[in-house]
């Protein structure tokens, strides 16, 4: 089922949660809503489900106008971030409940519940109550309830956020496959860019109640249209700095400059915002196009095979400290001043309005 939001606005009191938004997801795809906490993902999902009504604008499901239609009549499924099941029902009854309400025969219900339970590996737990299950199993039950219904639109609101790492990975791999066979349109909200990339499909990047960009996930990652999208789609956040293009050179700070290459080469002289992902800033000179810059280390994080350092540029002021993310273990000391190398060839440039300079 396709879903269309046309000019949707959601205001609660004086606050605007969703600014005027047009959004279309085509039928049968896996779609990701990506945005930080508070970007409006959950509000948008509730608007699609019919749990909340938009202040302005309309919602269409498969071309049908459903703006004020109740969720019961929309044939959608919804899985929350928290494990929401009916605590006083067994797992079996939990999965069966949407079917019972749809007035399907008992035999058919039984067949579908067992089939779904098998798919979600819940068969041994069918007689138990949700409270007796682990978090992962509880969320599987909630997912099973969404799957069994065979709804056209499946809304998943950060369904894996409250699971531990291992389970999250496991379910994340299964999810696209589970829905792919059913022809359902899936909308998956997440705050992790990493997760969006793994899930693929189409991504709508959200920031502060607006859709910053919509397109194939990998494409958005590589070529964010705006600085907003780039920020949403980078974890840790993208490093940004004010640069000035003068002739064939880009100047970041006194003594730090590089030849303008790629899209920026054709742009007129002036001030731009330069953005570079943390994984392109290395403590070692390895990349061919490495531009050396000095930084004062503020915070370091070591996670297994990866080193992360937050540092302040000594040569210029930036809105936020920069982050370097590199493979291998690098011994940093807090407060030390050391060189970092920026792979500027894969950096992005944005104009004053935040639009990316594309060639």
């Amino acid at each position, binding site marked *: 089922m396709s879903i269309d939001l046309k000019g949707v606005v959601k205001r609660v009191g004086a606050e605007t949660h969703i600014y005027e938004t047009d959004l279309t997801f085509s039928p049968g795809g896996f779609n990701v809503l990506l945005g930080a906490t508070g970007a409006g993902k959950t509000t948008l999902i*509730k608007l699609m*489900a019919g*749990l909340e009504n938009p202040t302005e604008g309309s919602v269409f499901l498969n071309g049908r106008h459903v703006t004020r239609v*109740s*969720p*019961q009549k929309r044939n*959608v*499924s*919804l899985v*929350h971030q*928290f494990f*929401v099941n*009916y*605590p*006083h029902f067994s797992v079996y009854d939990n999965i069966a*409940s*949407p079917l019972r*309400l*749809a007035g399907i025969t008992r035999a058919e219900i039984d067949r579908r519940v067992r089939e779904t339970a098998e798919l979600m590996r819940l068969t041994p737990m069918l007689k138990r109550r949700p409270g007796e299950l682990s978090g992962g199993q509880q969320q599987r039950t*909630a997912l099973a*309830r969404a799957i069994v*219904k065979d709804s056209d639109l499946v809304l998943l609101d950060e369904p894996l956020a409250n699971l531990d790492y291992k389970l999250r990975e496991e379910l994340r791999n299964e999810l696209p496959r589970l829905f792919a066979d059913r022809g359902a349109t899936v909308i998956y909200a997440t705050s992790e860019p990493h997760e969006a990339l793994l899930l693929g499909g189409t991504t709508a990047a959200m920031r502060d109640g607006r859709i910053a960009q919509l397109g194939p996930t990998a494409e958005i990652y590589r070529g964010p249209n705006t600085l907003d999208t780039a920020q949403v789609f980078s974890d840790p956040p993208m490093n940004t700095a004010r640069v000035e293009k003068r002739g064939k050179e880009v100047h970041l700070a006194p003594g730090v400059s590089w030849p303008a290459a790629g899209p920026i080469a054709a742009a007129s002289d002036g001030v731009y915002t330069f953005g570079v992902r943390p994984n392109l800033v290395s403590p070692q000179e390895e990349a061919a196009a490495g531009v050396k810059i000095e930084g004062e280390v503020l915070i370091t994080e070591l996670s297994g095979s990866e080193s992360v350092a937050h540092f302040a540029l000594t040569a210029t002021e930036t809105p936020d400290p920069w982050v370097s993310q590199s493979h291998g273990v690098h011994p940093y000391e807090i407060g030390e001043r050391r060189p970092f190398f920026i792979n500027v060839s894969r950096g992005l440039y944005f104009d004053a309005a935040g639009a990316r300079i594309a060639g």
Partner: protein
Amino acid sequence: MKRLTWLVPTIYIIFLMLPIYWLVNMSFKTTNEILGGFSPYPVEFTTENYVTILTDPTWYWGYINSLMYVSINTVLSVAVALPAAYAFSRYRFLGDKHLFFWLLTNRMAPPAVFALPFFQLYSAVHLFDTHLAVALAHCLFNIPLAVWILEGFMSGVPKELDETAYVDGYSFPAFFTRIFIPNIGAGVGVAAFFCFMFSWVELLLAKTLTAVEAKPIAATMTRTASTSGYELGLLAAAGCLTIIPGAIVIYFVRNYIAKGFALGRV
């Protein structure tokens, strides 16, 4: 020192239980023995007092009347409080917080204040001396209490449960009766218990609003005592029997009582 840790609790329990023991003790004595002197246990053991109460209609109808208006009140209070508490728990509306607090202030006025207006009003609409009259009068303080208790329990249920049910296809009434109420079953039990207890122990309104037909047991006790002299054994037996219904009801909600005293907010 360590061996004496049992001492304080024991003294405390003896202290608590002594009056109840004495009541039970008295109920098995004859009035003559009670007035005659001090004895820690019944010397002339008799069940005569209980037999009188359970066979004399003027006595046992007191219990039936009390149980009737208490039951009507409990059902009424909980039934009315459920939707009200749901509204307070789930919706924001103009003045909701003030209204919610105002409900509780109803409990702060002594019921005696309302005895006269109720008497006048119920007489006018021919409700005087009916079970319904007392049950309705007790709603005055029981509905606010039930709303407060239920609201606390309801707010403990995440709103996502409501949303999930709607998306699954439950209509509001189906969701409320089949999903929501079973989920706050403990809260309903606690609210019902408190309504039962407060209605059961309330004396003034119950006495004022009844004469013969719906006379509560407490009224029977005082009236009988004053008309036929001091039937102390009989009174003690009647007192023992009034403890029983509460004890039975409290057994069912024993695990949730603390939460109930905290008005469902733990």
